[in-house]
């Protein structure tokens, strides 16, 4: 602290020193917090790796290829869960991407601004709904609907093909996919709408000036220009869907088997971890579950990375050029 008895240069030096010191402390403190974020994340990966060591050691890569999941006999294969996770998510995408992109087109191109903002607001609120609520609704509302009406209809129409073989359980891969689709709407719509809004007006006008109808101009000129952003939204939604736990657990049927029929029950990585973790029968069982978590983490990490990359590219001007 500068005191009155010090000379002016002395006082100035002390003041500056204090200033520098304060800044240095601030820098250090905030840096430590930021570094802790990195450390925690590194620790997370590390723990996942070490706690799955038993299973990695015992099964190696065949863990990913085997489809037997038998806790009683300590046989663990991840394939049914990888299959279930991917199929439900991809099927969910197949349902939600057309609906979502269609909605995004309407909201960005056709709707008057106030309507567009209101509807977008409502759709984005969907992202705030907790996953367990989707699960409860899926369980009590969707499952009976599937069991009593939708699945029997599908079976009678398409039951000859392996994809739609009965019986009509109500729960199953298709039901889980439908719940996931609804959960993916806000992400696909919100991000795609942003990408479509950023398309320069001259693209649409160029198509219109050639005699295109409004739809043709939108579909042929605007949407392709925004394709990177739309694909980015798909990747990000896919990553979310893959990690979705509660909503899926309540409607998928929890059967660790690979079945060609989407009406059959299945199992996802997140669901089996949620169901079996606290009741794992052996250390190997636990390690296998943790290894499943590691696999899920890696898959979502890659997809999220790709999605972010695509979105990053679209924020640069002239982004449709690639």
């Amino acid at each position, binding site marked *: 602290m500068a005191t009155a008895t010090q000379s002016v240069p002395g006082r100035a030096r002390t003041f500056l020193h204090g200033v520098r010191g304060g800044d240095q402390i601030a820098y250090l403190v905030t840096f430590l917090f930021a570094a802790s974020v990195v450390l925690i994340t590194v620790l997370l990966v590390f723990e996942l790796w070490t706690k799955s060591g038993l299973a990695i050691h015992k099964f190696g890569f065949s863990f990913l290829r085997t489809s037997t999941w038998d806790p009683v006999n300590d046989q663990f294969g991840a394939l049914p869960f990888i299959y279930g996770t991917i199929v439900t998510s991809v099927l969910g995408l197949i349902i939600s991407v057309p609906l979502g992109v269609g909605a995004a087109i309407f909201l960005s191109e056709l709707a*008057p601004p106030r309507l567009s903002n209101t509807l977008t607001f409502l759709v984005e609120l969907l992202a705030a709904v907790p996953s367990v609520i989707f699960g409860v609704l899926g369980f009590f509302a969707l499952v009976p609907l599937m069991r009593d009406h939708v699945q029997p209809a599908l079976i009678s129409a398409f039951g000859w093909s392996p994809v739609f073989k009965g019986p009509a359980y109500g729960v199953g891969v298709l039901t889980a996919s439908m719940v996931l689709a609804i959960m993916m709407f806000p992400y696909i719509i919100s991000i795609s709408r942003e990408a479509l809004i950023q398309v320069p007006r001259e693209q649409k006008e*160029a*198509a219109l000036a050639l*005699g*295109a*109808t409004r739809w043709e101009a939108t579909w042929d000129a605007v949407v*392709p220009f925004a394709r990177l952003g739309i694909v980015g939204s798909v990747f990000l939604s896919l990553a979310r869907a893959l990690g979705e736990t509660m909503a899926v657990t309540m409607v998928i049927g929890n059967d660790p088997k690979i079945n060609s029929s989407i009406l059959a029950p299945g199992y996802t990585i997140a669901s089996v971890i949620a169901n079996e973790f606290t009741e794992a029968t052996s250390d190997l069982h636990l390690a296998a579950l943790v290894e499943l978590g590691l696999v899920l983490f890696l898959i979502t990490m890659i997809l999220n990375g790709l999605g972010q990359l695509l979105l990053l590219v679209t924020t640069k001007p002239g982004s*449709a050029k690639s």
Partner: protein
Amino acid sequence: MSASPRSGVAGKEESLEGPVSSKPIAQAGPKLRASNVDFFYGKFQALHNVSIDFPENQITALIGPSGCGKSTFLRTLNRINDTIRGARVTGEVVLDGNSIMQVDVTELRRRVGMVFQRPNPFPKSIFDNIAYGVRINGLARRSEIHDVVERSLRRAALWEEVKDKLNKSAYALSGGQQQRLCIARALAVDPEVLLLDEPCSALDPIATSKIEELLLSIRDQCTLIIVTHNMQQAARVADLTGFFLMGRLVEFNKTDFIFKTPAKKETEDYITGRFG
């Protein structure tokens, strides 16, 4: 003599076409006629009582300072302003005797093409850019499309430069080439009128002169209307010139008259660089 767009030199009618024309023989009147056009963006009135006759197969330039409404006026001619919220047009625009409000708008825009201020090729290949208008309008069989594309690129003086890379992305071309691509794309649907909204403003002088040459060469197949802020350009290429100021057409006449002996003081002020 008041330089009304109806009287005077500009009103001289190109009434009879040559035998190869597919248009009705007794074509009385101009190709495109605007009458008492007002334009509103919401409450703001951008155009006041604009009336012009555009004769067939002539190049008409619209000049004036920024914000004078010349681009707005151009865009009413192919109704591309319809897509802007709150835009309203009154008055009449007649193409070959038919009001453009009564013609199907997609057909109108095929007949009245447009080239924009900045090149705006689609994120497709060069070939697909040109073929787009042809395809959606069903103007050629699949086997003929390649010929149509080549013809358009030749008309736009771009064929030699791109014939070996038709499948490359249009964005691989330079700015001047992209603009010629856009012209070729517009020409591919065989328009009767071509609207050009400051087509060279984003280009260097060499690219600009190439495009001006191009315009002169297609004049006999097409009626051209070009908005430009470059008076020398208007003097170089246009047969007729209209001077806009604050949403009004101040003067319209043969280009020579406008630049050498303008009738209105505002025109003279603009020409001599006293404003804008």
